[in-house]
């Protein structure tokens, strides 16, 4: 973003990468897929790079308001300085905090989750689905809490999966009844409290029950949790966990849009 700004350039959207998208090896691939899709659609975008910090979601939910405020206020300062209007992010936690919590601190933007944005690109014809990457495949979808139940977005990711040529089967707990992967509320960064089993194992059982070949996700932390959960069930080879952007990238017409 600093580069774009120095050259007096304008962008349509800021791609908010997030900590997972920046550093987690698996989520980095999602960031790359997303960047590629933006390129194909001919969208002018930028990232904040080293000027981006964690939105503060895990700190606030752990109860550490000091750390949250430190991160949030610095991010808002950066975003306002570049006069950012529209933000797209592949992480529903970043999405929620940017959209719902930053306004109280002086940062108001048009924030979109990448499934919502990709759905728009598909509707407007900037992205076109082609090819049979998922032909004959059973696809299912895991609602992340922060996109689904918390922000009410159940449809956009389903529209995207339905645009592919596979068959979408719902998990037994889906939409507002969706079961958490176990990562939220800063659980990702601590050991589980004592219990009978891990939450991601419970969720992996739902996925196996659906007999899907691929489970679409919209959150880097869900991807980690579901992958681990399936591994714990010894089923990592039966079901693939993909971000929806990766699924779209596999089926999209790669000709770069004007």
């Amino acid at each position, binding site marked *: 973003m600093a580069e774009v700004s120095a050259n007096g350039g304008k962008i349509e959207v800021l791609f908010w990468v997030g900590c997972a998208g920046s550093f987690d090896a698996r989520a980095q691939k999602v960031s790359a897929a997303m960047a590629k899709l933006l390129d194909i659609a001919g969208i002018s975008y930028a990232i904040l790079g080293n000027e981006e910090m964690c939105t503060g979601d895990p700190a606030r*939910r752990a109860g550490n308001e000091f750390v949250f405020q430190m991160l949030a206020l610095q991010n808002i300062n950066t975003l306002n300085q570049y006069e950012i209007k529209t933000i797209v992010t592949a992480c529903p936690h970043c999405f929620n905090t940017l959209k719902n919590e930053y306004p109280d601190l002086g940062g108001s933007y048009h924030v979109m989750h990448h499934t919502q944005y990709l759905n728009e690109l598909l509707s407007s014809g900037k992205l076109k689905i082609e090819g049979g990457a998922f032909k004959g495949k059973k696809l299912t979808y895991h609602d992340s809490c922060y996109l689904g139940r918390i922000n009410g977005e159940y449809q956009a990711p389903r529209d995207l999966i339905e645009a592919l040529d596979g068959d979408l089967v719902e998990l037994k707990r889906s939409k507002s*009844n969706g079961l958490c992967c176990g990562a939220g509320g800063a659980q990702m960064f601590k050991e589980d409290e004592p219990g009978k089993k891990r939450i991601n194992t419970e969720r992996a059982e739902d996925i196996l029950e659906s007999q899907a070949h691929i489970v679409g996700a919209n959150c880097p932390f869900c991807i980690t949790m579901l992958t681990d959960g399936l591994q714990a069930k010894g089923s990592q080879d039966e079901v693939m966990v993909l971000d929806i952007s990766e699924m779209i990238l596999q089926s999209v017409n790669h000709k770069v849009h004007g």
Partner: protein
Amino acid sequence: MSQIIFLLITIGVAFLALKQYRRVLSNIRLGKKYEAKIEPSVGWKNVFLIAFGQKKMFKRWIPAVLHLGIYTAFLLTQIELIEILIDGIFGTHRAMHHVLGGMYSGIIGTIEFLSLFALVATIAFLVRRNIIKVDRLAKPELNGWPKLDANLILLGEMLLVTGIFMMNGADRVLQNIDPEHFAKITSMPISSWFGPMMFGDMGHDALVSIERFGWWLHVLVVYAFILYLPYSKHLHIFFAFPNVYFHDPSPRGKIENMPEIMNEVKSMLGMEVAVSENTEIADFGAKDITDLTWKNILDSYTCTECGRCTAVCPANITGKKLSPRKVMMSIRDRAEEIGTNLRSNDIKFAQGQNGEETTALTIDNYSDGKSLFDYISKEEIHACTTCNACVEACPVMINPLEPILQLRRYEILSESAGPPDWVPMFTSLENSGCVWQIPEERTAWTHQ
């Protein structure tokens, strides 16, 4: 004579009820100011759809239909209750029969149908709770009083219906024997069959006794309910309405901002701070119910312990100690304890400021050496994934997540404690702005 007894009992019940409900309201007022901006149009819409219309109950349709039966029977029986009050005071018999005419039969008929359905539903609920033992109704937090409470309510409801059918059944037979005093009611779908079957060969006086017994049974059980509710989970029949009205309409994903901390961090970062009122706050978050809002406490009194929240809680499902229902029950128990101690005016609960002697017990100097953490353990609050499943599940818009987060805030900000695993996360967030301590550049992925 019976009119005087009825009037005395009624006045006594009203007096005691007033006292009991004021006790509950004063316990709710132990909470802090509630800052949510309530839009009356949204509030009333919620009252209409969610409280009155039971919209959220229908996520689980079997209990929803059974509950709807008891609920509509309860609502419609209020008409009969008005008549009972009039008859009781003025010594009339079915006073509304003359006023309402043909409509009266229709109302009585509907009440009879609904009462029978309510009786079936009540039995079904007793079976679900005690024989089938539906998972969410057999969790450990219900052991003891909560379980007894639930069963007492159901038995009370059965007594209410029994009263109605004794009264109507005997009345039906009397309508044939003594039409002068017992006017014909054309539509009594249950009693016209039940009455003659049970009481058909009885004499006039015995029938009158049974009719009166049914009448008194019904009215006395209603009065008992009124006095019992402030001690029971069943209080939701009243509190669901205000609780739904006062639901915070702001986005679900937004956790309440803490302006004091925001301003402090702003000045730390050299940013402009709007107005610094310099309010000294010793503690952040909540360590007791007095640090929660009155809405959180209203939530706890509205909770009817149905356990829909706990049944969908990912932590609870996987065997962790956290149960959102238990969190709400604990808040109510603690509010009861503090409220009772405060009303006792016992000076032993008053803590002197700077060692001074205190003469009056107030909410500000109250101390019993306990806190909400004696009711809700750290293990419970640490298990929450903030997934909002409990918030989504509650039919009466209770938010168990809010107090959990307030307790976490107290633990982290005021006690500097918390799960040790979080310490490296906080450190790394403070030092590098990332949840992980990672040496790479944030743009490393772009070079892949």
